[in-house]
């Protein structure tokens, strides 16, 4: 695949962006957007990346909001707070977070679009109709996008209430579902509020000045494969602006190359001296070297296949990250983005 050409094509398709805007639209300037969507396979550390960037945005004086979708409850443990609600609440260090639940989003949607409050209440109170909304596909997606665009528009004291809205999408499938919504509903929905709403979502999602989709992945075969596939789909089928690619948990080994040249002689000595413990330790180090080399291979593969600014994050030694650790990741990540910009 000729990546250069396809990227150029993607860029043109974004809508004839004048060259002067190109630097402004630089994905490296991620924190200058309004709506930042993050996706990636489960378990790749998406929530950590989102929390880290939000912390860094807040440290730089912005007002970030983290939106967690549906059933995921990762932010409360990262920030060490209680259960998050549908209303944004402060979670510390200038960051707000909320849980976007289906029920709340549906209620908002109804209240907004059914001008007669009594009727809206009646629809919501109707068990059968509720079941219908739960079972019918796309309703959840519509309600979710409706809430996200409301958050984007929300103003306080003449300024947007949130400078930046981080959305932690739970899986690649979920992201594509939101992006596909307009297409799926195309030809189904005639003129009316729903049509206008869907058009509004498309405008917001496809406005590169406002919205960007970033990818989070791991330097392992399967997640990397999935990420490359997702990237290809995004390029060919979607107009959403692509943000950065975050490669998380890159293993590091704090032994310098010169020292490593003595690994073989050291093992020979350990064997000659019958030092089992040392032999074992050298063996483990070799395994870790292999793990690292393999991860580096995946990083190169991702960099080769994906034309997006890459942020490389080292594997953290501690399994439970403190808020300071997370904030430090944010600082490193944004510094790397800025380096791409220069």
């Amino acid at each position, binding site marked *: 695949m000729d990546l250069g050409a396809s990227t150029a094509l993607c860029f043109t398709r974004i809508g004839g962006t004048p060259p002067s805007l190109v630097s402004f639209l630089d994905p490296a300037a991620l924190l200058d957007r309004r709506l930042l969507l993050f996706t990636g*396979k489960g378990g790749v550390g998406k929530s950590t990346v989102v929390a880290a960037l939000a912390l860094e945005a807040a440290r730089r004086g912005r007002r970030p909001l983290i939106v967690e979708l549906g059933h995921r409850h990762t932010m409360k443990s990262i920030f060490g707070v209680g259960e998050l609600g549908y209303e944004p609440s402060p979670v510390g260090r200038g960051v707000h977070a909320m849980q976007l639940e289906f029920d709340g989003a549906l209620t908002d949607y109804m209240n907004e679009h059914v001008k007669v409050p009594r009727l809206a209440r009646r629809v919501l109170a109707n068990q059968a109709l509720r079941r219908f909304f739960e079972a019918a596909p796309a309703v959840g997606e519509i309600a979710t996008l409706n809430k996200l665009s409301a958050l984007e528009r929300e103003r306080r004291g003449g300024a947007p209430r949130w400078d930046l809205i981080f959305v932690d999408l739970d899986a690649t499938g979920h992201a594509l579902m939101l992006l596909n919504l307009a297409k799926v509903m195309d030809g189904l929905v005639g003129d009316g509020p729903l049509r206008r709403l869907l058009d509004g979502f498309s405008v917001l999602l496809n406005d590169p000045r406002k919205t960007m989709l970033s990818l989070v992945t791991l330097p392992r075969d399967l997640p990397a494969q999935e990420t490359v596939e997702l990237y290809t789909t995004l390029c060919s089928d979607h107009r959403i602006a692509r943000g950065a690619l975050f490669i998380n948990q890159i293993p590091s080994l704090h032994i310098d190359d010169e020292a490593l040249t003595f690994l073989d002689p050291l093992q020979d000595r350990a064997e000659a001296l019958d030092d089992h413990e040392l032999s074992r330790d050298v063996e483990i180090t070799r395994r870790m070297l292999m793990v690292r080399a393999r991860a580096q291979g995946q990083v190169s593969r991702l960099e080769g296949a994906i034309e997006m600014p890459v942020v490389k994050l080292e594997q953290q030694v501690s399994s439970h990250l403190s808020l300071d650790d997370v904030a430090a990741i944010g600082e490193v990540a944004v510094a790397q983005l800025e380096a791409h910009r220069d």
Partner: protein
Amino acid sequence: MIDQVGTLRNLLADKDLLVAVGPGGVGKTTISAAMGLEAARRGRTVLVLTIDPAKRLAQALGLTGLDDQVQEVSTEELAVGGVDVPGKLYAAMLDTGRSFDALMARVAPNAQARERILNNRVYRAMAGTLARSHAYIAMERLYEAMDDPRFDLVIHDTPPTRNAIEILDAPGTLMAFLEDNVVKWFVRRPASGLRAKLWATGSAAVTRLLGLLAGQEFLDEIVAFFESFYELREGFRERAERARAYLRHPRSSFVVVSSADPSNLEDALALADGIRSRGVMIEAAVFNRAYEPLGEDPLEVVTSVDRVDAATRIERVWEDASSASVVRRLMVGVERVVAEAAAANARAVETTTKFNLSERTERVFVARLEDDIRDLEGLHRLSPWLCREG
């Protein structure tokens, strides 16, 4: 450490149905396939139903086509390596779009009803594109597999987290949906008193409202969809009831698959709670890639290692003074690597103790293997962890 050694082995030997649930990205499909192979190795005829296997694993299972047909997995490659598989292993992939069509075709009372539903635009938009339909399809495939006399064990790999609960709820949701007359609401026929009654009870306002929100065209198509759907209700009801019974049968069990990573564990725990609150037992939890094998016995989870001071060690080991300082750096690094690995193992053990489901639940720790698993031999390598001798 491992509380109920051998539970998973017994499940593989005795159960008719194992449902693997867990967060995404933890290797659920791999573990499902490895469990299938293990049961086949113990003489059973197994079907592994997967959702979306990674390409290489799909190839290993012979699932190269895009269809959702059941394929027999050739175990010849294992036989060559001296591993005997007396049972049989089958695999099938769940292709939502096609499966949904097949499901509709099966429950449709006649060809006309089938064409109507398959050509409906609301239906077309639904099938395959949107995640929720996975739950219904998974339910349907389950029903089909359980009724197939060829298999004596079905291992059902589910989509990540939330959807796994939806699979449990899908039969119920569907039945409630049919019984609650929601469908009838949207059905223009029968022209008898029913619709008139509904209009009279005020649903007219709601229907009008939907028309207003979505446009008349959309509403018409929804109505047509529900009308077609209404015709299928008997077929659906029967299947839903049987699927529900299978999921809750004493010869069925759920296996949670997770990593030892705290965020995955949190998701897995929430999922396990949801499943248990629906009255379904979870008898085994598999923690995949949970630890680094550090001991002589790769099955042992070593959580601390004796540290020999690098300085003392180098005195003993290294004679060449000119390179001593570089080698000392190396030794310090090596010690750090091993100590960090042991500490990570200790944390894995500690975080997974939260996963205390019941006394009968076995917690299975699977080591981090060097390679991603991409063939049957790779799956077979997991055998010692999955089936520990009690």
